[in-house]
């Protein structure tokens, strides 16, 4: 293979989400002469971003004073909060806990907001490259991170170079900022290589699914923020819903399930669709149309799971570190603050060293510390969690106890050891999408078919032997995009991977009980094409 072409920057940012873009913008504000580039695997900025999203505006005020005069494309002040506890047919209004009071916050499309941030970044002469995936890490001779390697394009499924083959270049930089989002492809490798999680609990996750609807005129109440818990989840599964009323009759509706659930037969996508058929929600959606749909894992480990966020030559910001505040159900302000802090650190030190201590001493980690026991309290079921959450909230996290966090891939119950999945009494569904394939259509996901499969199964034998017996192949259920199917082949059942359906949510990489599914970056520009998600 020929020598890769090299581009040199002072700082390379991997991932154009709120953390990465905030970091790049702040860097250029502080040091206009620095050469800063942002690379992004989605075909355009925001196309792989999926979030609620209700955001706290404080970091935007700090980063871009005056932004309120020229706000992101979708930006609606929150007018009212509602929290509901749902039963199958009924609902009860709950008092809004302080973390979930959204007065002063805004409903946005985070995807559209990232496009808006990117335009501001480009005005500061930051080079932004959508459509290029950072597939590998460039290490210096001393073993520090020295930049990234862009994935080759035009490689066939068999690994052979096609006529359009183009070798990916290397981008070298003094500091690499990893802002890849939850379960980042490079972050995952670097956390392992530098043992960044040695002193922290394992990271834990949830899967968030979302649809953007245009509802019948009159049903949407711009500025209304609704959350729910309860049905269709049983008390053993942590999760709930959001419904955000935006403008132009548009409603963002979504559902989050903790990925620490035990039932291998549980289908998160189905739970979301069931929620949509609760009378309260069904009435809202009937007669409307879906505009976009998708899914993305979220990090839920918080304070206990936060890895060391620096290593030689690189640092982690945003949700590839895991700074989301679970009780608030918000990560954007935390990601932006971490990005801004990283920029200020790099501007001062021109190196990664010292960032972790700075982050831990910042409001970002202080915020996580206060709520550290709320999510793990729910390991013992909903009601005990609810009680504990109330205590932790009242004491502002000052109790001298820190509950441990467990890894999601260890939580499934074994079907061959007598576990009986509960009957969930699902209702018959009428609202679209009919199934996961129909949902993927609304994600507008696209992958060149003739490319190596980007979902690597490290030990394929396990799928048809142990996994079938022990868990009945849960990948066929936890994947929200129907990527995994068990099909009858000549020699019995075999796993079929419909990689082109993948929406890059990373759930498989997280929840697989044997940790043999390895999500790697496909050809740059592949993946979902979310609009206003």
């Amino acid at each position, binding site marked *: 293979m020929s020598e890769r072409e090299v581009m040199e920057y002072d700082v390379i940012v991997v991932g154009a989400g709120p953390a990465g873009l905030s970091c790049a913008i702040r860097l250029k504000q502080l040091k206009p002469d620095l050469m800063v580039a942002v690379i992004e695997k989605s075909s355009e900025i925001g196309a792989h971003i999926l979030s609620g999203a209700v955001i706290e505006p404080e970091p935007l005020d700090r980063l871009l004073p005056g932004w309120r005069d020229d706000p992101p494309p979708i930006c609606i002040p929150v007018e009212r909060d509602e929290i509901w506890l749902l039963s199958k047919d009924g609902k009860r209004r709950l008092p809004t806990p302080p973390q979930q009071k959204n007065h002063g916050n805004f409903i946005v499309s985070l995807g559209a907001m990232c496009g808006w941030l990117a335009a501001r970044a480009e005005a500061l002469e930051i*080079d932004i490259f959508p459509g290029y995936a950072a597939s590998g890490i460039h290490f210096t001779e001393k073993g520090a991170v020295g930049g990234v390697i862009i994935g080759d394009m035009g490689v066939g499924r068999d690994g052979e170079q096609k006529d359009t083959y*183009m070798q990916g*270049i290397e981008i070298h930089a003094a500091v690499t900022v990893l802002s890849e989002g939850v379960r980042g492809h490079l972050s995952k490798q670097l956390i392992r290589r530098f043992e960044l999680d040695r002193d922290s609990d394992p990271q834990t996750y949830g899967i968030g699914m979302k649809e953007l609807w245009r509802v019948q005129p009159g049903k949407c109440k711009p500025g209304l923020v609704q959350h729910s818990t309860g049905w269709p989840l049983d008390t053993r599964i942590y999760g709930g819903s959001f419904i955000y009323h935006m403008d132009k009759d548009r409603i963002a509706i979504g559902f989050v399930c903790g990925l620490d659930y035990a039932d291998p037969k549980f289908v998160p996508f189905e739970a979301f669709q069931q929620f949509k058929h609760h009378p309260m929600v069904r009435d809202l959606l009937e007669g409307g149309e879906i505009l976009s749909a998708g899914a993305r894992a979220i990090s839920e480990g918080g304070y206990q799971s936060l890895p060391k966020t620096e290593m030689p030559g690189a640092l982690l910001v945003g949700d590839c570190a895991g700074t989301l505040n679970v009780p608030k159900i918000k990560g954007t302000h935390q990601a932006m603050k971490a990005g801004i802090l990283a920029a200020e650190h790099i501007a001062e030190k021109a190196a990664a060293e010292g960032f972790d201590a700075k982050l831990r001493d910042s409001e970002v980690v202080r915020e996580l510390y206060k709520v550290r026991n709320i999510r793990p309290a729910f390991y013992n079921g909903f009601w005990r969690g609810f009680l504990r959450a109330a205590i932790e909230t009242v004491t502002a996290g000052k109790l001298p106890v820190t509950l441990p966090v467990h890894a999601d891939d260890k939580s499934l119950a074994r079907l061959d050891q007598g576990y009986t999945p509960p009957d969930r009494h699902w209702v018959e569904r009428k609202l679209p999408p009919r199934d996961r394939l129909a949902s993927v259509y609304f994600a507008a996901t*696209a992958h060149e078919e003739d490319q190596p499969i980007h979902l690597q199964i490290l030990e394929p034998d396990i799928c048809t032997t142990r996994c079938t017996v022990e868990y009945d192949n849960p990948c066929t259920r936890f994947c929200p995009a129907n990527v995994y199917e068990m099909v009858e082949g000549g020699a019995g059942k075999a796993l079929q991977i419909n990689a082109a359906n993948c929406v890059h949510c990373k759930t498989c990489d997280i929840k697989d009980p044997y940790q043999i599914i390895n999500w790697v970056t496909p050809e740059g520009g592949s993946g979902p*094409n979310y*609009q*206003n998600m």
Partner: protein
Amino acid sequence: MKILVGIKRVVDYNVRVRVLPDGSGVDTDGVKMSVNPFDEIALEEALRIKEAGKAEEVIVISVGGDECQQQLRTGLAMGADRAIQVKTGTSLQPLSVAKAMLGIIEREQPGLVILGKQAIDDDNSQTGQMLAALWDRPQATFASKLTLNDGSVTVVREVDVGLETIEIDLPAVITVDLRLNEPRFVKLPDIMKAKRKPLDVVPLEELGVSADSNLSVSHFAPPAQRAKGIMVEDAAQLVQELKNRGLI
């Protein structure tokens, strides 16, 4: 020889196109925009001709608002030497676009003009044909193979009954079909180089072209929703169901 390539900014082919609720147009809010894929093939062919030493310069041209500069930059990053934006705030019909391109042709005197066979947004397939007529030069549409000769070009055309091979004199207008080539990926460093390549802006009025149109669009409507299907057990039931619906 100079080659002029037309590029249109269109809704990306991966986007699910939606008609606005009031039927006034297509929803482009937050929608990804790209170079019309057929125009990308046209540009790829022009670049290959230049790389084969048969042309000296490739110029990309787009007619539209400033947002189409993004697509012109993509063309420059692919390898075009310079770009021309014919600036207008109005959405033009093919005849006006062809007239604008003719204005640029008169200035630049290209030996070959290559366009996509149609744009994937309105599917008109008219600009190339109209341009050839206005310019009074030969045209070859739906090209799936080009061979440059001395003063002429041999073109294999995709027609309803198969393939047709014709030879036309240069200068000429060629519109290209899907199978002509597979466009290259853009190299990252070339995106940076493209930022420094010349991009001239020419107001539509300067070319003496009017944005007025003899056509007016009344409304847009999405295709009718497909009714839900049923699964039939066998051929007999299929026939019966079709009869029940009065279809046979």
